[in-house]
């Protein structure tokens, strides 16, 4: 019915349907032209606009009204106009603003990547690597929150949370009743539940997959392995839950299934399943089916994100470091204790030890 809009992003012109956001148009171009996103999630209605990492410059508003927009805009929540011209990587202002946002996001972040299960597949690590500056300009103690048990499956590390609200939208849109949300205001805002330990809905496990950082992690996988030592395989099973697509990714070491997650697309979002719906999975598939016998294995996962996981060089990966390939080849299946089995070396998964409560870097004595 309506004509497509032409929009030019970093000098590349694409045609998109009216109502498309600048971000989705930029993803159509792909590559570095697509702005980084920390809060937007195309599968979650209402998400986006909060983290401000996707800011872009609109140098021409539209064919009809060519004036540039006075401020940088959040590309994830701004729709395109016909003839719009956008600058992302070609802008002079965007890199500075994005570096600023990165600095803000890291300002109170605990930087505990060495003991964080998300390390290696963390959007904040990627953002910091690509847009952050070396060193920090803050000299103040970082904000901390009291540890809190939010439910039987999911571990909350509030100190790592960037308040993207994705988990809130996920619970709102996937479960019949949302049991958690953001409490308090400003710097003290935190993810929490009104009723203690109440996150046990059969689809609540999906909040782990949407969380861009290690604030929500899988209790059944906690401290068991580093993601870059595990090997992802695509698999499926005939799940009895009608709302579960049963299509997953198994994270293996040897014959052991360490972790089950939903499949992700190239933007790090839960991928579309073969039934055409978003590939959310149920708790049973995620937490209880940790045996290869439960699954029909399809084959190695095609990873094309720039994460360290791709250093494993499985089929179709675009990993860059030849050296890493050799290292991985050496260590797989050998279990050298000092690099692989962090769990038994550091014993950090003792339930009585809360990393949040340890001031400064953790020491082996802390786990005695």
């Amino acid at each position, binding site marked *: 019915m309506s004509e497509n809009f032409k929009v030019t992003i970093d000098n590349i012109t694409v045609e998109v349907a009216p109502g498309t956001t600048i971000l989705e148009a930029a993803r159509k171009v792909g590559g570095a032209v697509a702005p980084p996103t920390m809060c937007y999630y195309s599968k979650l209605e209402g998400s*986006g*606009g*909060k*983290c*401000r*990492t996707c*800011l872009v410059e609109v140098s021409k508003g539209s064919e009809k009204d060519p004036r540039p927009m*006075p*401020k*940088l805009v*959040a590309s994830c*929540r701004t729709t395109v106009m016909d003839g719009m011209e956008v600058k992302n990587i070609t802008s002079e202002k965007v890199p*500075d*603003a994005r570096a*600023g*946002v990165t*600095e*803000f*996001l890291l*300002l*109170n972040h605990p930087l505990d990547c060495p003991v964080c299960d998300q390390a290696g597949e963390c959007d904040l690590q990627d953002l910091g690597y690509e847009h952050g500056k070396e060193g920090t*300009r*803050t000299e*103040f103690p970082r*904000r901390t929150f009291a540890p809190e048990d939010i439910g039987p499956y999911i571990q909350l590390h509030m100190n790592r949370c*960037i*308040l993207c*609200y994705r988990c809130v939208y996920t619970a709102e849109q996937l479960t019949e009743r949302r049991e958690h*949300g*953001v409490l*308090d*205001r*400003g*710097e*003290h*805002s935190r993810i929490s539940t009104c009723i203690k330990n109440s996150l046990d809905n059969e689809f609540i496990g999906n909040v782990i997959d949407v969380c861009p950082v290690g604030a929500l992690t899988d209790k059944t996988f906690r401290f068991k392995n580093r993601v870059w030592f595990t090997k992802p395989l695509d698999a499926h099973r005939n799940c009895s839950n009608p709302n579960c697509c049963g299509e997953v990714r198994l994270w293996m070491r040897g014959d052991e299934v360490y972790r089950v997650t939903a499949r992700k697309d190239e933007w790090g979002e839960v991928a579309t399943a073969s039934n055409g719906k978003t590939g959310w999975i149920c708790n049973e598939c995620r937490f209880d089916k940790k045996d290869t016998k439960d699954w029909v294995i399809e084959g190695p996962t095609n990873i094309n994100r720039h994460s360290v996981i791709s250093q494993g060089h499985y089929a179709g990966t675009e990993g860059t470091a030849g050296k890493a390939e050799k290292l991985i080849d050496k260590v797989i299946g050998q279990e050298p204790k000092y690099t692989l089995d962090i769990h038994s070396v550091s014993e950090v998964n003792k339930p009585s030890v809360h990393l949040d409560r340890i001031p400064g870097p953790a020491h082996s004595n802390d786990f005695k």
Partner: protein
Amino acid sequence: MKLLLEKAHIEGIRYYDTYRKNGGYSSVEKALKMSPDEIVEEVKKSGLRGRGGAGFPTGMKWSFLAKPEGVPRHLVCNADESEPGTFKDRYLMEFLPHLFIEGMIISSYALGSNTSYIYIRGEYAWIPDILEQAIAEAKEAGWLGKNIKGTGFDCEIYVQRGGGAYICGEETALIESLEGKRGNPRIKPPFPAVQGLWMRPTVVNNVETIAAVGPIITMGGDEYAKLGAGRSTGTKLISACGNLNKPGVYEIDFNLSVEEFIYSDEYCGGIPNGKKLKACIPGGSSVPILPANLLLHESNGNKRLMNYESLSEGGFQTGTMLGSGGFIVLDEDQCVVRHTMSLAHFYNHESCGQCSPCREGTGWMYKILKNIEYGKGKMEDIDLLWDIQRRIEGNTICPLGDAAAWPVAAAIRHFRDEFEWHVLHPEEAQTRNYGLAHYAEPRTIVAAQ
């Protein structure tokens, strides 16, 4: 010329009978004989600009209101008044509630809002009772309710108390809060005029804006537009506070000079104890602070006047903003660093925490300012502050981010030597303030990389 506070001195004007005897509700009578579009037209002609801070033309805002068939529309009055230094709406609601309710009725009629709301800050604990009584009296007299005076127009007004969050004064956070949700500003678009309260078309206006609608209808938009100066039409309430002999709420003509407002006996009556004027924030805590010389004179040497254009003359290099009219005066004994720290604390405390620059940046600025104020600052901290505010401004969801950045930027722009003095004299800074300096030229700041 007084339009709003004309009858403020009359004994018992808070009650309907006295108010009516003194000519009250004649503007509603007149308005109900007009068509809604005619009223919008009068408001457009009047040139009335929003008194909540942004100064957006009210008639234009009203004409943007979407009118889809079969969808109710709402008028929401923003009585959240939490901007430090601003207390003019309180005066209107407390002493002239019927003037305000009159404006609410006319505006509701003009916009076709059958259910209108007044969202009032929780700390004004006693005012909802005054408003609810005025509403009940107006209803009793037939100015509210079903089929008002036989026009076929129905209208109810409800008063909703807020929980005491500054951010709920931002119009979309206010709407969220009114809906019973967490007071987070919405990401715009869509704007309230299209999807506001319960996703229906909504107009949000400040108390003083609404109160001005009555006089506009009585005298006609053209007459109202003749008052004032240029695009600053009508009159404005200024709440003056700080080091003044006579702090309080004044209704001013837009041709009044800042100097006369501060020093004349008709208004603030000068600075107490023979002290000198050091600086002033003329429009509520969010607007840039100006040193005395720039406050009293525009960059071209002309006297600075109390209106939108004159106060913002020269942009932020040499000017500021009229904002909400919260006029805060600092005498020579006041410390700009301490003052800036206290504002930074306020914005840090009031950030809703949705977007990262404001959530993280406001706290960072506050901590650095605290260090400088308490003698632990470093020279680099001043450039760092500049850099932080620069990266908050314009990059956030709602204007609270800008409101947090501007005071810091202006303080450094105009009073950098005071910050430096704090760093160089950490011990002395604890016991005395930096003297009255001559800030004749605006400083140009080279942004630190």
